[in-house]
């Protein structure tokens, strides 16, 4: 069974390769290397994915629709579906609107504060969502949550006495709020790029024609960045359906269960794992995502959108007047809620040694940090594992992505297009499904990778390939074709050109991509929720385990440690590459 699939994938790639290079008799070593990397990546993604699909109809060697029946017979299926859709639609819409508003304010008005505003909304990327969710539990819980406590203290001054609240993170609105908070950077990034590529003179023309600010925004700006918004919606939905961190920490407390958390529980918190139901539920997600994907394709195809031609001059920014500081406070407010507030909660709890809003400021100590991160070997190992996976995985992932992007850019054959499509596939099928596929494909014989670091590494590379690949594509497309051709004509071989021209010029983009991958890998709680066990514990998985045991000081210390390490490594990487990047960009 396994062998058969292997052969099929291998052979289906072969005719394309021969077709694309017909009159040339020999294939250069670099070409062969690119092809090998491409086919290997395709296998890593397609094989587990196909195992999920096969497992749906094919149980123990015979045709069987049992998985479907199992799904339908799941208790509370209706409730589960309602919860999931409610969360994705409400939280996703909130993230889209907020992302658009932040992007528009920073791209089109004088609310921006230099380059700082470009970075601010992206800062929360540094904090692994699982750590941020833990932070929000600590600051937002109704009784012991720091925020609620501080608000109660203030209210007491004006004579209002409360025992708990006023806010409760363990509710629908709390869940939607935190969930949206960590989806905002995606629409922000896409819409900013869309606005930057939209010729400002289109909007200026509308203003000259007598349209007011709102009319221009509504009739000219919005319709023209529609592709970016539709793309954001797709990404938000894909990430949203598969997001486990926020639902498992906050949703569990609120007794709101969604599909993703149920899949994790069926596979990893139930013994024996109930794979059939988990697979069935994954397919529900897949069907929904394919639907959204097609809808988005139609939306974009139907319209006519203006784009920039060449290098256009920056348009004059809209002056907000007295609204300027309100607009700015939105950006700062976002950074406060997404990054500073949860970090504060984690930090104080760690230094305090236990979770209590009544901070004993004089007795804060780093001892707990040391206890958790150093003396507890299991926690230390999990943290070490995550950082190791982040460093090694992001490096391998980015090398693969850069190789594929360069290959696709240079090659006109069908093979490269197919490989590129497969590399982007995990973005549409959600990491959750792939992780389930990795269990089916690699956990058992002949691979027997259950509980190893390798299966995590492979799963990380496969599930996050689209992020790396898109970053590398952007970097590769900035390296003009003629720069490579000039190298060939100068007598440089393909691999020399790749090393001396492509890689140095792509470096800023590759570093950005690497950083993104590193944070995703190190803070992963998607693949690791399903694939990680005691022998290959990751920090993300450990955070959830500690949470379930209820030791919040531990939880805070580990989450804080994870955030500190990712922040530190990203900082160092950017500091080291900034000088070289500046040259390449100029």
């Amino acid at each position: 069974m396994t062998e058969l699939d292997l052969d099929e994938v291998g052979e289906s790639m072969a005719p394309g390769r021969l077709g694309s290079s017909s009159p040339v008799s020999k294939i250069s070593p670099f070409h062969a290397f690119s092809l090998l990397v491409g086919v290997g990546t395709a296998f890593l993604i397609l094989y587990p994915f196909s195992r999920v699909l096969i497992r749906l109809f094919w149980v123990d060697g015979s045709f069987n629709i049992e998985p479907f029946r199992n799904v339908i017979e799941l208790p509370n299926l209706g409730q589960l579906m309602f919860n999931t859709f409610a969360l994705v639609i409400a939280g996703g819409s909130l993230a889209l609107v907020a992302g658009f508003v932040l992007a528009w304010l920073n791209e089109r008005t004088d609310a921006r504060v230099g380059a700082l505003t470009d970075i601010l909304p992206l800062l929360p990327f540094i904090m692994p969502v699982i750590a941020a969710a833990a932070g929000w539990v600590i600051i937002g819980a109704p009784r012991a949550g720091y925020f609620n406590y501080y608000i109660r203290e203030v209210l007491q001054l004006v004579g209002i006495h409360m025992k708990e609240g006023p806010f409760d993170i363990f509710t629908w609105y709390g869940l939607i709020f935190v969930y949206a908070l960590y989806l905002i950077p995606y629409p922000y990034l896409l819409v900013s790029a869309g606005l930057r590529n939209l010729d400002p003179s289109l909007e200026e023309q509308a203003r000259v024609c007598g349209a007011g600010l709102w009319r221009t925004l509504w009739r000219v700006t919005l319709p023209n960045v529609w592709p970016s918004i539709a793309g954001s919606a797709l990404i938000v939905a894909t990430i949203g359906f598969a997001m486990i961190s926020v639902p498992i920490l906050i949703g569990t407390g609120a007794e709101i269960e969604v599909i993703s958390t149920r899949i994790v529980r069926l596979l990893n918190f139930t013994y024996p794992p109930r794979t059939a139901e988990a697979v069935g539920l994954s397919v529900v997600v897949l069907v929904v995502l394919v639907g959204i994907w097609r809808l988005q394709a139609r939306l974009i195809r139907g319209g006519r959108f203006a784009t920039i031609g060449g290098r256009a001059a920056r348009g004059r920014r809209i002056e907000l007047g007295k609204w300027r500081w309100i607009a700015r406070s939105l950006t700062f407010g976002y950074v406060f809620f997404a990054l500073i507030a949860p970090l504060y909660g984690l930090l104080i709890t760690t230094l305090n040694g236990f979770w209590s809003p009544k901070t004993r400021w004089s007795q804060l100590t780093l001892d707990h940090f040391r206890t958790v991160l150093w003396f507890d070997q299991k926690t230390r190992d999990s943290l070490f594992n995550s950082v190791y996976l982040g460093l090694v995985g992001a490096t391998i992932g980015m090398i693969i992505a850069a190789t594929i992007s360069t290959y696709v850019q240079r090659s006109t054959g069908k093979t490269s297009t197919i490989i590129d499509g497969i590399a982007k596939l995990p973005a549409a099928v959600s990491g959750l499904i792939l992780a389930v596929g990795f269990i089916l494909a690699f956990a058992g014989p002949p691979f027997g990778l259950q509980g190893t670091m390798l299966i995590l590494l492979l799963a990380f590379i496969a599930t996050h390939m689209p992020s790396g690949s898109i970053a590398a594509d952007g970097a590769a497309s900035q390296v003009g074709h003629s720069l490579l051709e000039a190298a060939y004509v100068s007598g440089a071989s393909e691999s020399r050109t790749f090393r001396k021209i492509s890689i140095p010029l792509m470096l800023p983009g590759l570093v950005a991509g690497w950083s993104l991958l590193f944070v995703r890998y190190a803070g992963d709680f998607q693949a690791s929720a399903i694939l990680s066990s005691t022998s290959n514990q990751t920090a993300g998985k450990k955070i959830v385990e500690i949470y379930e045991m209820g030791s919040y000081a531990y939880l805070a210390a580990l989450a804080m440690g994870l955030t500190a390490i990712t922040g530190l490594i990203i900082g160092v990487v950017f500091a080291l590459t900034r000088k070289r990047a500046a040259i390449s960009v100029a």
Partner: protein
Amino acid sequence: MEDVVVEVRNLQKTFKRADGTLVKAVDDVSISVRSGECIVLLGPSGCGKTTLLRSIAGLEKPEDGEILLHGERMFSGKKKLEVAPQDRALSMIFQSYALWPHMTAFENVAFPLRSRKLPRAEVGERVKKTLEMVGVGELAGQHPSDMSGGQQQRVALARALVAGDDLVLLDEPLSNVDAKVRDQLRRELVEMQREINFSAIYVTHDQIEAMELADRIAVMELGKIVQLGPPKEIYERPSTRYVANFIGTVNELSGTVKGISAGGLMTVATELGDLEVPTAEGTTTGSEVAITFRPERCSISSHQVEGSLSWKGTVNTSSFFGSHTEHHIKMTESISFLVWQAESTQLSHNDEVWVTIDLANLRTLPIESDEVSDASH
């Protein structure tokens, strides 16, 4: 027999458009370049000139035909042979210069030598010498982003010359610098080419550039070379209306061949009456032809001139251009001619004048049946 550097035989290259239609970018082209010669591929955008150049460099893969460099086969459709660009021992200057932004001028120029694994000392020496030769020796340590367009162009030229390849391909290298610098660089390029004596294939859509640089011009249209010859021949004896119109300005008078007489003359019926003109190749009685002549070859007078062709017309506009004066003369409702005169006599609107042209300066060219007959300016 002179030494042939490049030989292209029956080259074919087809592109597929986005809508699926096929475009023959290079259509059965054969051309050879002699040692030390500069050939200019001239034509409008989309005529296939750049594709032909890139095929010679090995950056495009033709479907059929052969490319030989120094008699050695670099590409052969029949034999399924293709030598990679890095193994062809030629240089190329790109329209965008394609200087690597992360390298200094020195590193850029050193790259071809380092790729060919020359010893370190020799690399340094040759790079310095070449940078000085093109006049940017002092820029060695600078990055391309700190240079002007003209300086970048010189560095690109140095990079192309440093390896000492005797074939340099140039893809519209001067189109990105401003007019004054362009003129100067063009003159220097001519000098350098004569001095170092490399062969060059130069792609441009600018006929003035072509005239100045070329030993021979190959005018291209729709993937084919329609005429190949020295600039003077192309200008004075264009083989088609397309060539006549592309190189310089031309007046056209269309008509139908009424009869061919002895002595290389034929009678053509035109709107300005029957004319006795030199015969054109491939025309028979009844053929549509265009009688063409250059604006600087005709003259204007207040009376009819005997012994030449002379037509009466009225002045439409008269503009002074410094080097010459251009008169736009209306002959009939649908026909008007341009006349360039060295002297700066301004004529007034509606003045009656005679346009005179010597028979020897006329060239009769066939009108292809599929051509739109826009035989007047």
